[in-house]
């Protein structure tokens, strides 16, 4: 068996235009500076994608990347996928499943896809061997059909696959990449870019092993990590709930707390009996057939497989009911039938559509219909009311989004671009930031979320600051927090609707989550003290790679990542004015509990505090020269200046 060192990071470069490939090692110091996965991608994106490149052209590069902890029993099989988004920003997303470890065992830690193929292809990697294969027979297939077809073609049960569905092929704005059937990633546009390259799938199989530098130290650090996360020992109310019932439990809690976006967030309260009907408990009872997990996850059942047992969709199979679906296909559309919610979700997975894109865009369209801005003449005859009684019609509309047909072609643009096209004030209730649809967590009651969503370099993405409902602040005494470099009044910081300390809190969350996503590890596993005390992650990184790096230097990697991602966006023209909550959140009060809109007197000081804490210009959001210098990113400042960007001292 071929053994590699955990610190080794190799990139496979594939030129889809001419079919050439080569493997090259990445600079060893990059592992120290950017760790891997998302971090490595931040550097590669900034260096390799020319400014103002056409996102759907030859110059855009699509990266798949694992990292130093992948393949080890703590990487959780997480990996990063990245490119320039068709919206102009960085597109980066995290994936679960089993693909990352398989890449590592094949000796490929990153795959860079340059150029564009002239006909559909898929990339097959098996250890040292790599080739592009014809994929004409797969083009047009749904993701489950693609999975089946490739498994017949590559009869090795352990081959790992990533693929797009018809949505990605057809250039639907926010299509995703899927793998392991039900794990998706890259909603910021990676599926669309993969489709533009005519790359249907990647298959990888690796038979090697990964050695760690200090095995006993690794095992010891693992024990601490595991103790924080195990059902029996975790000091966190989230652990038992999320690790078994899963994240959709939130909907029922939020429904009563003024936190559940209902009817396109016109309301923030949903009737309790409706929330019960689509609850995590109802899901577990009626649909779940077995527990699932990403590679090496310490939790028993964050993921599941489900089958709709009877009724109209009898026999439909899928997996994973996250925090998202009960909102985007439930309260947001006012649908309280779990069979139907799951059917919508299964259909999105089959077609490679992003559930947030589809849910928020449908909700926007329903509000347009309610207000008479869109009529049956626009919707191909569908009565598009909230609660939607025409279920067959709505499922058909989802298909039409993926195929960009009829009314579906408008919704395929995503709600921002669709609203700009439709006008008539509909921009005011399109719930998106930087043209990307929101996710499931309420903004007017979790100010850190509002800020995190507004400033995110990739558009709304909860993994950048998860969790908004953090651990018990009393687990770490103030002296220990200070020793860990956290100088925050945690009590204030954790108050949802108090703007104080939110900028500094978000800085901590952004940096520490960037570290986790670069190792990589799963950001949902920052329970107990693991979200504030990053030492177990640091110890596992050191033991695995053998790199002597000091704790604060290790955390700096996260800071570099955010600065590089910000610099990428700055070079593309994004500035402070783009870091803003959606119109509805900034201008309309919540109709319950007196929760206020995010008016400038609330939002602007938080934004100032965040930029200030990050060392960025308050007027433009551009990282200051001294900030970049201190992070060893002087070349980034120079590159920005060379493009005519004014970088403050």
């Amino acid at each position, binding site marked *: 068996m071929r053994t590699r060192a955990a610190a080794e990071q190799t990139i496979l470069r594939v030129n889809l235009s001419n079919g050439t490939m080569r493997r090259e090692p990445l600079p060893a110091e990059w592992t120290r500076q950017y760790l891997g996965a998302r971090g490595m991608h931040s550097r590669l994106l900034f260096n390799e994608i020319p400014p103002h490149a056409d996102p759907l052209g030859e110059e855009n590069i699509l990266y798949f990347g694992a990292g130093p902890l992948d393949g080890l029993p703590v990487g959780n099989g997480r990996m990063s996928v990245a490119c320039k988004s068709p919206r102009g920003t960085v597109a980066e997303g995290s994936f679960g499943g089993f693909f990352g470890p398989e890449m590592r065992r094949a000796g490929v830690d990153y795959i860079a896809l340059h150029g564009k193929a002239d006909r559909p292809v898929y990339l097959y990697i098996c250890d040292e061997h790599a080739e592009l294969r014809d994929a004409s027979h797969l083009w047009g297939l749904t993701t489950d059909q693609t999975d089946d077809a490739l498994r017949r073609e590559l009869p090795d049960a352990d081959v790992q696959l990533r693929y797009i569905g018809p949505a990605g092929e057809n250039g639907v704005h926010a299509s995703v990449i899927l793998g392991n059937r039900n794990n998706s990633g890259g909603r910021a546009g990676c599926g669309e870019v993969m489709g533009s390259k005519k790359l249907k799938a990647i298959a990888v199989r690796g038979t090697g092993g990964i050695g760690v530098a200090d095995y006993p130290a690794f095992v010891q650090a693992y024990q601490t990590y595991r103790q924080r996360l195990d059902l029996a020992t975790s000091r966190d109310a989230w652990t038992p709930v999320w690790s078994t019932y899963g994240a959709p439990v939130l909907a029922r809690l939020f429904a009563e707390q003024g936190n559940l976006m209902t009817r396109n967030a016109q309301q923030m309260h949903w009737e*309790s009996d409706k929330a019960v009907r689509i609850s995590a408990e109802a899901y577990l009872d009626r649909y779940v057939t077995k527990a699932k997990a990403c590679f090496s996850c310490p939790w028993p059942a964050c993921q599941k497989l489900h089958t709709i047992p009877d009724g109209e969709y009898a026999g439909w199979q899928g997996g994973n009911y996250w925090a998202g679906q009960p909102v985007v296909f439930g309260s947001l559309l006012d649908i309280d039938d779990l069979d139907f919610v799951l059917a919508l979700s299964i259909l999105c997975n089959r077609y490679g559509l992003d559930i947030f894109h589809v849910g928020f865009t449908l909700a926007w369209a329903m509000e347009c219909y309610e207000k008479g801005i869109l009529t049956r003449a626009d919707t191909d005859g569908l009565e598009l009311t909230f609660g939607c009684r025409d279920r067959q019609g709505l499922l058909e509309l989802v298909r039409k989004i993926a195929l960009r047909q009829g009314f579906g072609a408008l919704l395929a643009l995503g709600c921002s671009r669709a609203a700009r096209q439709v006008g008539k004030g509909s921009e005011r209730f399109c719930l998106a930031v930087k043209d990307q649809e929101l996710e499931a967590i309420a903004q007017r009651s979790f100010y850190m979320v509002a800020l995190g969503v507004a400033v995110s370099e990739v558009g709304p993405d909860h993994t950048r600051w998860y969790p908004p409902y953090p651990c018990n602040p009393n687990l770490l005494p103030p002296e220990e927090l200070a020793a860990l470099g956290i100088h925050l009044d945690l009590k204030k910081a954790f108050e949802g609707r108090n703007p104080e300390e939110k900028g500094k809190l978000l800085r901590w969350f952004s940096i520490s989550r960037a570290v986790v996503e670069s190792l990589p590890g799963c950001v949902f596993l920052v329970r107990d003290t693991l979200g504030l005390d990053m030492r177990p992650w640091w110890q596992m990184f050191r033991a695995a790679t053998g790199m002597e790096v000091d704790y604060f230097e290790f955390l700096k990697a996260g800071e570099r990542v955010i600065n590089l991602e910000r610099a990428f966006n700055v070079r593309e023209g994004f500035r402070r004015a783009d870091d803003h909550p959606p119109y509805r959140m900034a201008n309309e009060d919540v109709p319950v509990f007196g*929760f206020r809109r995010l008016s400038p007197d609330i939002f602007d000081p938080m934004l100032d505090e965040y930029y200030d804490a990050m060392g960025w210009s308050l007027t433009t959001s551009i990282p200051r020269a001294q900030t970049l210098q201190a992070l060893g990113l002087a070349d980034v400042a120079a590159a920005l200046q060379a493009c005519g960007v004014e970088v403050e001292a």
Partner: protein
Amino acid sequence: MSAKTLTLRYVAHFSTISGCLEEVYTTRAASVRQLIDALDQRYPGFAAALVDPASGRLRLNAAVYLNPPAQPPLSLLDLDRPLEDGAKLTFW
């Protein structure tokens, strides 16, 4: 002491213990702690899942959310907080 009518919601494992997701419950309990004791009579194991026997405080792996009548919800830390008629409690 007058009776209070409460809405009780059981999330995740509390629904495994109570066997239901929510119920309207009338009680003479004065505080949340007394309510938990009363519920433990109905649903054996209920108190043990919420209260740390050593300290008498809320267990670190459990949570209680309280909606006082017509007020914003809060995450409850003090089990001796008095109960108000019409409150909603979510056991998590």
